[in-house]
């Protein structure tokens, strides 16, 4: 039914209108100032900036974030699984074993990450002594 898609169409229109209008307004009423060195510096509450704007994070933060997402999603699956478990388990044990294989695969991943020292923060490759500072 095409009329059911009127909301979708309106949403598309609203999206286009927003994108075009914000750009148009900034072009129309925005003031074109002159560029100066001071204008191009990073804003530091009125003070002169000290040091580089881009601080570098250790790659380990990303590693932990990735592993967190990986093992966190597992729980999301388990909630839905738990909701239907009681009804389904009467029919067959398939639902029981399928969660087993799922956790098994994740466990292999966990062992692999552990063995590859993905959780090891104190040892940096290239330095022999642990750096705990």
């Amino acid at each position, binding site marked *: *039914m*095409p009329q*059911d*898609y009127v909301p979708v169409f309106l949403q598309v229109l609203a999206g286009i209108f927003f994108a075009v209008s914000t750009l148009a307004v900034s072009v129309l009423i925005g003031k074109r100032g002159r560029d100066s060195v001071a204008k191009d510096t990073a804003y530091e509450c009125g003070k002169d900036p000290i040091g580089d704007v881009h601080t570098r994070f250790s790659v380990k933060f990303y590693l932990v974030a990735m592993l967190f997402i990986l093992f966190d999603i597992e729980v999301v699956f388990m909630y839905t699984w738990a909701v239907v478990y009681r009804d389904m388990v009467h029919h067959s044990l398939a639902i029981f074993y399928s969660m087993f294989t799922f956790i098994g*695969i994740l466990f*292999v991943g966990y*062992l*692999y990450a552990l*063995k*590859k020292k993905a959780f090891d923060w104190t040892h940096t490759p290239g330095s022999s002594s642990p750096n705990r500072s």
Partner: protein
Amino acid sequence: MLSPTYLTYLAPEILLTVWAMILLLLEAFLSLSAREITRLALAGILVTAIETLFFGTDTTLFWGSLCKWDGAAKFFHLFFLAVAALAIWMADEVQEPVTHGGGEFVVLPLFTTTGLMLLASANDFMLLFVALELVTISLYILVAYRRRSLVALEAGVKYLILGGLSSAFLVMGVAYIFGITGTTRFDAIFPLFIYGMPTAVGFGLLLVLIGVGFKIAMVPFHIWAPDVYEGAPNSITAFLSVGSKAGGIIILLRIVLGVFGAGPGCDIWVPVLYVGAILSLLLGNLAAIPQRNLKRLMGYSSVGHTGFILVAVIGAAASLPGGARASIAELANGQTTVMVYLVTYLLATFTIFIVLAVLERRLPGLEIHHLAGLSQRSPLLAAAFALSLVSLAGVPPLSGFIAKALVILVAWNRHLYPLLIVTIFAAVAALYYYLGPIKAMYWSEPLDETPIKVNRTTSAVLIGLIVLLIVTGFYAQSISVLVGGATLAQATPDPVHLVSK
């Protein structure tokens, strides 16, 4: 023959996944070398392939109808296993070894292959999406594996962003289709749209085609191909250009024939693929002409080959916009042509990339003029390279000729005359740029006279591939034995009878 009921517990996908996980643990705990892991991975692939041979071509649904086993599924399972074996072997034996984590470089293609095999037997949009993500996510890692190289990083980022975009298109399309039908099962959707189709479903199909178009590098969704091909390690480029493309083609076949194979569906997808095929044939083959870097040249050539395959896919349509209906023989013919084309494409492409990998060990970023006088430095490499280029160009008596001839025949039989003209023009244009490297190898003075040594296994594999290229060219029946019965199981009810009502 194993009964298809064993698929539930013993599907090739399960075997390969379990083996890949065991290998990961072996690599982590026993710290096996990359070479040992490679041997074990190849053994696993061999066992899986033998097991696959034991399943017949009877049509069965398994895993709660998520998957469907039929002739096409069996053919593509074996095809992907062959691709994986060649790519994994290449990674260890032929090309420059990866500097770190060699074991993962071998195990990841096993997961990619599992994803591709799932795609080959998908019967549900959900499974299709998950399998496609398994393929692309493992390929993101493999493409950017040489992470200290800027070219590899550029390739990785491009592939990541465009891969994500294409998945978004696909999922959006699936959402539209699901929104109307309330199901994601292919065989449940098919009977709903035999006599008519709502616009929203057509729009969904269009989005799905865009998503798949990215995967098979169909123009105008091909932009990533040359850059990614250039930056990825040679074995992965070969894997991408054969395995990933064949994966895209089989889901394309499953969607356009299995889900939207009836008349109203054909009215949407045939014109889209028609335009895609013409653009791919023209742009792929014409843009390859000015390329000097060999891997970029192969990238554009791969876009061109997508065009040829799409012509065969259109030939498998149950009804064409002109009102022409297909007979069952014609439907099967289109599908078989796709598979024959992929087999010959696999043989020639892998030969080329093995030669490139040997040469790039000495000189990365190979360009055409670097090939000068290769016939004097290594007659085997030059012969293998030249024969596979000639086969890709479609010159008789090599196997590429049979494939191109079949494509042209399909277009002729289905009266697709504009497409036929473009196909022939593209084949002639292709001849021109494939001859460039051959000219350099045989009729140019070498810049550097040192002979190139090829080790015994590599020579044996190259000779084997050359023999196959020639044998399948002379005896086209040998491929038809392979693809015999390898058609998609007919979606019930039979589309041919329905559209003719």
